[in-house]
């Protein structure tokens, strides 16, 4: 755990952070509002005290109540992973600015997050589905998506073909919406 | 009384066959005799009046028939040699050491469906393989296999060879254009660009030989190289040989210049949409091309059918068969049975489990082997062309091995490198070679 990094981050982004900086193992986590992502990322990327040059991973998360996009950054200046969580995207219309202006390689990862969660990355030139067919309507990794062949959840429905298109907003489907797994 | 059909049905299978075939054979024989008696003299007159034509027809037939086993042999060779270089065994199931696998491939290709894809230009699509195949078969006509064994001794043989070789491109272009497939189109265009480019250094590289020998006839060029090993043009024209080999590899679309069918880039090039025997024609033409390119290299540079060294023990067996008279008849009548008995005896005496007729069969087989070997040896000693053919084929298959070996080793070049190499390196080198050769000839032959 790199306490110095925590201090630097607090000094630089103190007012922008949503909640305290969490550190566990070799990971440092900051949470920012979606609108702050470009400035924060640019600062982290450019400023010599951070120099997080490499975007190691970009993914979306559906917590069941809100959406998040999670960025993992790497820098030579610290032995920690820096996790930047853009928190609090609405589930109905999740939008977050794209980071392709810094990392061209984020383009496909953002496409994947769009494909799987429906998160719209504003500024991504090529935001279309990447894995699923273009006429697919739902977002599979959302928590309200259920496996269509899940016979345990669809009594009498039997096994349906997995590629069958279905809309989660459909009234008949709503009755079977799967909630987030809880303890 | 049985009806004739009942009688026929009661016969055994061999009986039925004989019963059916014998009348047919008799009828055919009678017809043949009648035909010979009636039109024989006129036909003979006609044939003797047009001997070159007869020679051409026979040669064309032989050449056409020859391509199939040649292609089979080279395909097998390619499979086996590359496999051995890859540390595999290669074909080893069909026939001894898998040698019949290429025959099975041929049969498989014959049996496969021969379809024309939707949108293809049917006529051009159908005739493209024929053009490719005929182009390579027609080149074989002028290749001198041995003294006296060649299709036509054309005085413009070399020119004819390159002209016919260039004709194959037309077929590839036809295939590429008519297939209604972009991969085929790219393959066809690649082959056109490649073959047209490499035609020039290829032709220029042999002009030096033409200057040296003063003829375009392949037969005469080969004759020009008779004598010692150092009369071969490879020693007089080493640069030309190198250029020729590189350009010929490109002409035959072989690795590292097999861009027309680069499977990792454009699937199978011009042959992508072909199946069945049409594809088989392309396949055969490719391997016949390898053979004729090797044959041409041998004829031009490696002395053709000339032996690299003189046979150190000259044996001349010219038995005067006519002088033996009745003795010949006696020999023909007596030698085979006696030899069979002689060869059968050891088996019969040493192996008590063997019946006498079984020993006789073994003896007969052995006698045949010995007799064929003796005949071949006799032919080898007494006929020039057998020796020549043997040497020619040995050298040619040496070159075929070289092509296969290159395929097993080298990666493919890129299209711009390919074209750049032809125009920037091979063409100037060929011109330089031509210039130096001409200069040398002028210097040597000018009287001082």
């Amino acid at each position: 755990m790199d306490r110095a990094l925590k201090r630097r981050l607090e000094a630089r982004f103190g007012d922008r952070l949503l909640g305290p900086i969490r550190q566990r193992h070799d990971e440092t986590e900051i949470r920012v509002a979606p609108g702050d992502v470009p400035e924060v990322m640019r600062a982290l990327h450019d400023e010599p005290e951070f120099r997080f040059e490499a975007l190691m991973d970009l993914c979306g998360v559906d917590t069941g109540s809100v959406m998040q996009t999670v960025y993992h950054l790497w820098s030579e200046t610290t032995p920690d992973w820096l996790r930047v969580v853009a928190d609090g995207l609405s589930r109905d219309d999740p939008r977050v600015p794209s980071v392709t202006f810094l990392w061209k390689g984020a383009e496909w990862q953002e496409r994947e997050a769009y494909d799987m969660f429906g998160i719209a990355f504003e500024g991504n030139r090529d935001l279309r589905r990447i894995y699923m067919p273009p006429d697919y309507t739902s977002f599979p990794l959302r928590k309200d998506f259920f496996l269509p062949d899940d016979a345990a959840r669809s009594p009498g429905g039997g096994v349906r073909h997995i590629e069958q298109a279905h809309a989660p907003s459909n009234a008949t489907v709503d009755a079977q919406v799967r909630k987030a797994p809880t303890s | 009384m049985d009806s004739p059909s009942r009688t026929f049905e009661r016969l055994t299978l061999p009986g039925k066959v004989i019963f059916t075939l014998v009348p047919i054979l008799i009828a055919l024989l009678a017809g043949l005799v009648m035909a010979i008696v009636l039109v024989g003299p006129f036909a003979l007159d006609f044939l003797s009046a047009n001997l070159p034509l007869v020679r051409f027809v026979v040669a064309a037939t032989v050449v056409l028939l020859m391509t199939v086993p040649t292609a089979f042999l080279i395909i097998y060779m390619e499979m086996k040699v590359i496999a051995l270089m890859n540390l595999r065994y290669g074909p080893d199931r069909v026939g001894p050491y898998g040698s019949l696998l290429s025959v099975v491939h041929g049969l498989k290709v014959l049996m496969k469906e021969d379809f024309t894809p939707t949108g293809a230009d049917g006529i051009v699509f159908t005739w493209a393989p024929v053009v490719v195949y005929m182009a390579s078969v027609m080149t074989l006509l002028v290749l001198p296999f041995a003294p006296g064994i060649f299709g036509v001794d054309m005085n413009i043989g070399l020119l004819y060879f390159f002209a016919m070789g260039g004709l194959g491109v037309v077929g590839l272009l036809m295939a590429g254009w008519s297939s209604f497939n972009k991969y085929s189109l790219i393959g066809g265009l690649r082959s056109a660009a490649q073959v047209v480019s490499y035609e020039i250094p290829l032709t220029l590289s042999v002009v030096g030989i033409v200057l040296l020998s003063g003829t375009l006839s392949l037969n005469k060029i080969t004759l020009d190289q008779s004598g010692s090993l150092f009369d071969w043009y490879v020693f007089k024209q080493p640069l030309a040989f190198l250029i020729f080999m590189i350009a010929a590899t490109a002409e035959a679309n072989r690795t590292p210049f097999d861009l027309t069918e680069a499977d990792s880039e454009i699937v199978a090039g011009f042959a992508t949409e072909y199946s069945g025997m049409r594809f088989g024609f392309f396949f055969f033409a490719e391997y016949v091309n390898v053979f004729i390119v090797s044959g041409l290299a041998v004829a031009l540079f490696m002395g053709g059918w000339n032996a690299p060294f003189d046979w150190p023990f000259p044996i001349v067996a010219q038995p005067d068969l006519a002088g033996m008279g009745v003795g010949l008849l006696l020999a023909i009548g007596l030698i085979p049975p006696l030899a069979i008995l002689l060869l059968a005896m050891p088996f019969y005496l040493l192996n008590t489990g063997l019946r006498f007729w079984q020993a006789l069969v073994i003896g007969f087989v052995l006698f045949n082997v010995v007799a064929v070997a003796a005949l071949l040896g006799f032919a080898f000693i007494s006929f020039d062309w057998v020796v020549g053919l043997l040497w020619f084929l040995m050298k040619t298959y040496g070159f075929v091995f070289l092509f296969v070996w290159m395929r097993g080793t080298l990666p493919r070049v890129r299209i711009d490198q390919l074209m750049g190499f032809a125009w920037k390196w091979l063409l100037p080198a060929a011109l330089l070679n031509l210039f130096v050769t001409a200069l040398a000839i002028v210097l040597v032959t000018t009287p001082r």
Partner: protein
Amino acid sequence: MSADLTTARHASSDDPRVMLEEAVGVFAPIPPYPPRTEREAEFYTLGDGEMFINMGPQHPSTHGVLRVVLKIEGERVVDLDPVLGYLHRGVEKLCENADYHHTIAYTDPLEYVSALFNEWAPVMAFEKLMDVEVPRRAEYIRVLSGELNRIASHALFMGWMALDLGGLTPILWSFIERDEIVDMLASLTGQRMLFNYFRIGGVNGDLNHEFMSRLGAWMSKATSQIEANQALLNENEIFVRRMRGLGTLDREAAFRLCMTGPNIRASGVPLDMRRAHPYSVYPDLEFDIPTRQEGDCLARYLVRLDEVKQSIRIIDQCLHDMPDGPIMAKLPRLMRPRPGRAYAAVEGPRGQYATYAISDGTDQPFRMRIHDPSFVHLQAVGLLTSGNLIADTMAIMASLDPIMGGVDK
């Protein structure tokens, strides 16, 4: 060709040539729906003399079921658009519905060439979630088997590289190399390809006699065998001329494209997770991180060759330093880590294999993100290829070494 294939369908719908193309039912790469993004509209509009060519998903050299739509002008590639999803299995969703142990069996076949690294990343992430201390012997065994798998993967890379450039022989020699390693790993893990060997808190089985004897026999000849095979390609003029200066990536571009692994090390960045974020017992081991400055296809190829030598060094040290002890940590039978998040990355043969796992306190991961390097690297193909020839597309794609199983997840 009967119909002009170079016509774009957007051009005009009453064009007879377009109608013919539709009538004969020939597959056209132009999607039948209006363009969804700016980039798609730009790509699927043809310029003068350009045409589309559809490569894959059944193409000999797309390393699996990748489909690439090439926009070409003669032999020159103007632009390309990779189309993914032909091998998509939804592993992340499946992992959310499986408990922690079961996810290993799902992540295993993601990238079938280097399956151990796909197990390693999630296992490490779960260990972080559970705060498990892995026994040192288990860590050494993981490093040992992982490096063996890395060599097998790089051996295959060399063969594929040559095959995509038209050489027939190296791929079979590579498979000989790989076969020996894979047989070795089969005697250790029980399977040849999808090992399913790492467990949360350790490994499935201890080293056994058969594995050790096979490893010893292989180690005695490995270096000489690999070097002998390299002579075929490394000095080959055709090979070197095709690879040198092709698809050059400089340091900044490599970072911008989120490259990891050998691909970024070929651009002169010594970014190796084994040193940048040390995990397992790598801090105790001595090895170098080979880098090259050129950043072209040849550099990417040579960096991998150098890595093989370093891996042999690591294996040698592992065998010498291997401590005795247990191979599994003591864990409850059913895992319910406390709510939290963990990110773990390992350095695989293609780059960073990472897993971001979120636990909500149940026996199943709430969210499991699997990061695969092939996926990130594949998008560089479009950038590196435009302006080069069709044949270069294969060379660049092969030098980036994507495995479609990992790309499509």
